[in-house]
C-alpha cells in the first residue's frame, strides 16, 4: 500500500455529513469552468527525469514557488500554524474548530504531494523556504468572517489554478491536479459554509458586508497583472492555458454569483485594486 493510499483511506474514514465540502458540489456536476489553450499552441510533455529546457524549468519553478504548499517550505508550515492558532482563538463552536483541523490535514496532504513533485524536479527547490509574497496571504484576520473570506477566496484561487493544471505539460503536476482542485474547492466551500452561517443574523451579515471590501480586491489581485509579460511564455510551454485576465474573469463570475446568493452587495471591481 502506498503512502498516499493510506492517506486516502484515512480521509474516507474521517468523512462526516459536512466534510469533505467538495463532495456535494461535485455531485451536482462540474463546478468549475474549463480552460483551453489558444488554437495552434505547441504541445509539450515532460515527465519527471526528463531534461527540461532552461526557460521551461524556470517558469515551472516560478509557478511552484507561488503555489508554496511543500513540506520543505517552512514558511508554508508556519502559515498553517497560524490557521490553527487563529482557530483556537476565535472559533465560534467546536464543530467549526474541528472542520478547520480537517482543512489543515488536507493542506498537509498537499504538502506531501508537492514535496514529492519538488524532489523529482530539483532537490534544492524542495527544501527552499518561500514565504507567501502576495498580500492576500497577509491580510489581518480578526474575526471568523475574515477567516471564512480567506478560505472562500484564496483557496478558490488555488482550485482555479489546479483546474488549469489538468492540461499541464508537466506530467507530475497534471496527475495531481484533480485531487488538488477538488480539495481546494472544498476548502473554499468550507469558507462559504461559514459565511452562510455568519450571514444568518443581521449583525453577522453587516460585518461580512463590511469585510468584503477588504477581501474582494485582494482576491481579484491574486491573479496578477492582466498584461504580465510572462503569461505568453507560460501558455507557449503548456504550463498555463489562459492569461491572468481570462482566469480572473472566470473566477469573478463564480464568486459574484456565490456572494449575491448570500445577499451581499458586490464591491466595485476596480476599487482598492493594486494589480489590474
Amino acid at each position, binding site marked *: 500500500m502506498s503512502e498516499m493510499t493510506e492517506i486516502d483511506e484515512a480521509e474516507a474514514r474521517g468523512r462526516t455529513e459536512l466534510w469533505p465540502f467538495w463532495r456535494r458540489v461535485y455531485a451536482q456536476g462540474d463546478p468549475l469552468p474549463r480552460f483551453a489553450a489558444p488554437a495552434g499552441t505547441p504541445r509539450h510533455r515532460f515527465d519527471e527525469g526528463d531534461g527540461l529546457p532552461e526557460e521551461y524549468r524556470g517558469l515551472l519553478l516560478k509557478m511552484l514557488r507561488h503555489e508554496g504548499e511543500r513540506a520543505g517550505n517552512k514558511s508554508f508550515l508556519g502559515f498553517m500554524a497560524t490557521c490553527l492558532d*487563529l482557530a483556537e482563538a*476565535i472559533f465560534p463552536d467546536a464543530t467549526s474548530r474541528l472542520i478547520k483541523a480537517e482543512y489543515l490535514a488536507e493542506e498537509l496532504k498537499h504538502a506531501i504531494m508537492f514535496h514529492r513533485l519538488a524532489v523529482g524536479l530539483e532537490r534544492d527547490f524542495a527544501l527552499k523556504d518561500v514565504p507567501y509574497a502576495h*498580500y492576500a496571504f497577509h*491580510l489581518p484576520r480578526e474575526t471568523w468572517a475574515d477567516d471564512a473570506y480567506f478560505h472562500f477566496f484564496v483557496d478558490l484561487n488555488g482550485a482555479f489554478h489546479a483546474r488549469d493544471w489538468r492540461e499541464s505539460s508537466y506530467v507530475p503536476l497534471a496527475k495531481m491536479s484533480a485531487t488538488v482542485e477538488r480539495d481546494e474547492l472544498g476548502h473554499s466551500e468550507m469558507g462559504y459554509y461559514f459565511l452562510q452561517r455568519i450571514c444568518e443574523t443581521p449583525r453577522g451579515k*453587516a*460585518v461580512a458586508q463590511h469585510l468584503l*471590501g477588504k477581501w474582494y480586491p485582494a482576491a481579484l489581485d491574486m491573479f496578477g497583472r492582466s498584461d504580465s509579460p510572462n503569461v505568453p511564455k507560460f501558455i507557449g510551454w503548456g504550463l498555463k492555458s489562459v492569461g491572468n485576465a481570462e482566469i480572473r474573469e472566470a473566477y469573478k463570475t463564480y464568486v459574484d454569483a456565490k456572494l449575491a446568493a448570500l445577499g451581499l452587495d458586490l464591491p466595485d471591481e476596480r476599487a482598492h485594486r*493594486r494589480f489590474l
Partner: protein
Amino acid sequence: MGDIVEEIRAAYGRVGITLDRPATYGTYYRLLCAGCGKMVGNVGDRLLPGMAAALVEQQFDLYATGGLGCPCGHQREVTRGGDPARWEAAQRRHGESA
C-alpha cells in the same frame, strides 16, 4: 519588512491592539488586545505600504460597535476616546445590527 511591521504596529496601536512578537519565522504576528492581552487575530508582514493604516481606518466602525475587537470591549473604548463624534455616528449607523 521592518518598515511594514512598524506601520502595522502603529496602525493597530491607534485602536488598542498590540502587535505581538513574530509567531512563525518572522512572517506572521499575533494581534493582542492591549487591554487584556487576549489574542484577537493575526496579520502577515507582506502587506503593501500604507495598507495597514487604510485597513484599520476602514474597520473603525467595526471596532466602535464591537463587530471586531476583544470581548472585553477595549477597542470599543479606545475608538470612543479617539474620535467620539465618529464613534457616535458608528453607533447610529450600525444601531440595528450592532
